[in-house]
């Protein structure tokens, strides 16, 4: 079923209204009236990554009310659009700063985030990275940049561990795999890493495809011909949908689909494919369903966006705002150096994502983040690993597509 968004802003307006109402109604326990901090949230809101940027925005929309209820200071959100373009990202970051932003949050795409990080560091304005896994960003010796998201090496190591757990729970270790990935920064980075980790299975065929591809039938034919037990994939939403449909049409269901990246858990995927969306396992940074703040966030999310599933984009964008408000409270002032120091001293144990909490190392990277293994089931995602964070049992092998139509 396709959703036509004739009024693209309606949800946002509703969510904003709800948040505002909640803010007025909730008791304010904030200390000595700290003026709201001007936070520039810069995301790809147009261009080819527009869908993701707008998805991250949802995490921003539900944040204010929750932060207020936690007794954290208020944030004034200023929106920036990278237009899915590196140069525009840089320009708009500069614009936000010259318009008074005291802290920046962004920006999902590694190339754009790098440009923004440069601007932030040059201007001495703190940047909290919500999503963005390119390791180079935290290797530059920046003082003003912190990242609450795993880097590609972290993702690889952790997802590999999760994969091992999944095999353990399933009681099966596959011997052969076919590996499909997009040909972009993320895809190639993950590809190099996966080979380097010496997986327990043999990769019979590696198929790299164009992220903007409209037709993946040849790729799937190749994959099917490899006759592997499982399929590994690093891709995004549009190719996840294309691949699944092609697999149905070409009558091929691997034992399992292991996704090491985004796409297979996103709302559009489950909504569009219905029953056909069940089964794929995504190894991703995710929320811990057993944490208290997760429950609060989930409730707010479901209220603001009924029918949608909460995922990585929302969780990490929310956490970026959480980190900001928390640091602001501790710093007690909007002086950039004080903010940066407070950011580096962050220690939040009651957070949402899987792992011991939010703490940054000397380079500004949160190295405690863990990934989870989530599986699509009944139009939602259930967490099957790690065991401490699990809330459902793994389904292995996947039910063949031909039995589902």
């Amino acid at each position, binding site marked *: 079923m396709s959703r036509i968004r004739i009024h693209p802003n309606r949800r946002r307006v509703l969510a904003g209204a709800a948040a505002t109402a909640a803010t007025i109604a909730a008791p304010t326990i904030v200390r000595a009236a700290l003026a709201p901090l001007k936070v520039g949230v810069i995301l790809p809101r147009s261009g080819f990554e527009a869908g993701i940027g707008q998805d991250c925005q949802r995490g921003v929309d539900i944040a204010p009310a929750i932060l207020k209820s936690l007794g954290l200071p208020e944030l004034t959100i200023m929106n920036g659009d990278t237009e899915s373009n590196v*140069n525009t990202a*840089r320009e708009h970051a500069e614009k936000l*700063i*010259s318009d008074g932003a005291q802290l920046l949050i962004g920006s999902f795409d590694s*190339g754009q985030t790098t440009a923004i990080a440069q601007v932030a*560091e040059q201007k001495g304005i703190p940047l909290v990275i919500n999503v963005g896994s390119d390791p180079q960003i935290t290797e530059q010796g920046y003082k003003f940049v912190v990242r609450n998201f795993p880097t590609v090496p972290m993702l690889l190591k952790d997802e590999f561990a999760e994969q091992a757990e999944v095999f353990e729970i399933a009681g099966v270790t596959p011997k052969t795999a076919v590996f499909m990935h997009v040909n*972009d*920064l993320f*895809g190639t980075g993950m590809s190099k890493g996966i080979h380097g980790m010496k997986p327990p299975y043999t990769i019979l065929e590696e198929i790299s495809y164009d992220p903007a591809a409209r037709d993946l039938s040849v790729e799937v034919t190749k994959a099917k011909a490899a006759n592997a037990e499982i399929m590994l994939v690093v891709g995004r939403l549009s190719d996840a949908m294309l691949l699944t449909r092609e697999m149905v049409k070409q009558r091929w269901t691997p034992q399992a689909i292991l996704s090491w990246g985004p796409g297979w858990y996103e709302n559009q995927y489950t909504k569009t494919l219905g029953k056909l969306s069940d089964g794929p396992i995504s190894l991703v940074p995710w929320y811990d369903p057993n944490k208290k703040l997760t429950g609060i966030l989930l409730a707010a999310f479901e209220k603001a966006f009924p029918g949608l599933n909460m995922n990585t984009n929302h969780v990490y964008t929310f956490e970026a705002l959480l980190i900001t408000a928390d640091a602001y409270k501790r710093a007690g002032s909007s002086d950039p150096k004080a903010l940066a120091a407070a950011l580096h001293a962050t220690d939040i144990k009651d957070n949402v994502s899987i792992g011991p909490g939010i703490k940054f190392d000397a380079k500004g990277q949160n190295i405690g983040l863990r990934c989870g293994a989530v599986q699509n089931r009944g139009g939602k995602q259930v967490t099957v690993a790690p065991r401490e964070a699990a809330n459902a049992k793994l389904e292995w092998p996947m039910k063949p597509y031909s039995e589902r139509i």
Partner: protein
Amino acid sequence: MIARLADGAARRSLWLLAAVFAALVIAPWAVNDYLLTVMIVALYLAYTGQAWNIMMGFAGQLSLGNALYAGLGAYVAATLFTRYGVAPWLGLLAAIPVAVACAAIIGFLAFRFGVAGVYFAILTIAFAEFARVGFDHFDFVHASAGLFLPVAQYTHDDLWRLRGNPTMFYYVMLAATAFAFLLSRALLRGRIGYFWLAIREDEQAARAAGIDTFRCKMLALMISAAVTSFAGVFYAFFYNNLFPEQVFNISQSIEMILGPIIGGIGTLFGPVLGAFVLTGMAESVTSIMSALGFDLPGAKQVFYGICLLLVVVALPEGIWPPLARRFGIDKAKQ
């Protein structure tokens, strides 16, 4: 030498030129950092537009793939810098031959086989796209993962390594644009300029008159490529990251040519004027929209497109020629 170039130019246009240049020199002190970046982008477009103008405005060859030369320049200089520590100005000396060689190949293939007009345009697109996909798989320069330069620290300006303040970059680009402007003027007034004019008006007749059209067209292409390659070097060191998807993209090529077309093809002031008008337009639309509280992604581009449409429909020669007539500057001298 510059004085000789001024020979024959209308008094008024010289004053105008001086005034504009002076304003541009003082600008960094008057504007904030954000506007400075905007102006750097405008100058970049003016520079690449001027380079393209040599090929199109003077010699009449419609190229829609100039991003190729910028991209090559960017990658050559950036690779030499990151792998071997070669300074960008030396990297430029390596980048120019690469770009020129490419242009020569394209020109040779096109002109020997009689590919002209729209077909030539499409040929240039094909080569740029070929490079884009090719570099996306070229592991030596990190392919689609992107080539990153170690990032600039604000502390001091290193002109030799092109690391430093945006203000430094601004003046580099300003100097480059001035150079391109003077170069165009010199070319126009030289013999090659007249040959190009003849070819642009009627190639058959030019050949009949004894002009070696092949050589002249090749020259136009190669000079244009060489000039554009510097823009690529600048791009690499200013933005500090290169992705084939961005750098060789057809939208980059299109952006480069919008300035001259709007400003006035074949004129000297046209590309510069057009670039500033375009950048100014884009930024005002963004500012107006954020002032009105409009947060509609894509709306800015729609406005931009409408403005372009209006300019194209209402001002067929571009903005500069009618303006020049208003100022009483004889168009023929420009």
